[in-house]
């Protein structure tokens, strides 16, 4: 495109510094209430799972307590692995016809040691357990929201109880 003959440009008077100077000449000085709002997108720091400095067995018992309060079920842990909890949670919600449909969401909770006295709890989605439902055909179009919602409830329960 003959960009040379384009007249598309930035309007100088619309730049923030220019406008502040414009207002100054009209007797309005910058003040605390009349200064640029900072909406700097503060870097969102993401963690893998949630951190804990509590004693490992305390962490695990807190998790069992939270699961119980949320009405979730869990498989008995293996004797050689106290730090993995296989959970099943019944999530009820209406389908398109408005009938309440229960789905059994499965999650695996695992405790990792990062360093001395620094542990990490990871929550991993482990599919749905629907008796008789067709085996998952597409393993790439599943909705993470029920899993995210249960993880949120669990984290809030742990935050509240701790």
């Amino acid at each position, binding site marked *: 495109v003959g960009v040379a003959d384009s007249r598309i440009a930035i309007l100088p008077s619309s730049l923030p510094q220019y406008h502040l100077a414009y207002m100054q000449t009209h007797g309005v000085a910058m003040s605390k209430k009349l200064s640029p709002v900072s909406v700097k997108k503060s870097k*969102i720091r*993401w*963690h893998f799972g949630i951190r804990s400095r509590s004693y490992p067995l305390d962490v695990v018992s807190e998790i069992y307590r939270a699961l119980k309060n949320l009405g979730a079920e869990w498989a008995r842990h293996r004797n050689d692995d106290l730090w993995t909890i296989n959970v099943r949670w019944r999530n009820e919600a209406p389908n398109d016809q408005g009938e309440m449909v229960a789905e059994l969401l499965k999650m695996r909770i695992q405790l990792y040691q990062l360093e001395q006295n620094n542990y990490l709890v990871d929550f991993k*989605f482990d599919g749905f357990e629907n008796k008789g439902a067709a085996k998952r055909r597409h393993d790439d179009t599943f909705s993470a929201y029920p899993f*995210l919602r249960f993880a949120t409830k669990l984290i*809030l329960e742990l935050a509240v109880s701790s």
Partner: protein
Amino acid sequence: LATTSIRHNVLAVASVSRYSSKYVTQILYTPL
């Protein structure tokens, strides 16, 4: 699962999953 520290009473959790042959990071913001 990825989480952020709770700010303004809001908790964010996220998980990465495959959608067809691309990767979507689904982030859910929930109030405490």
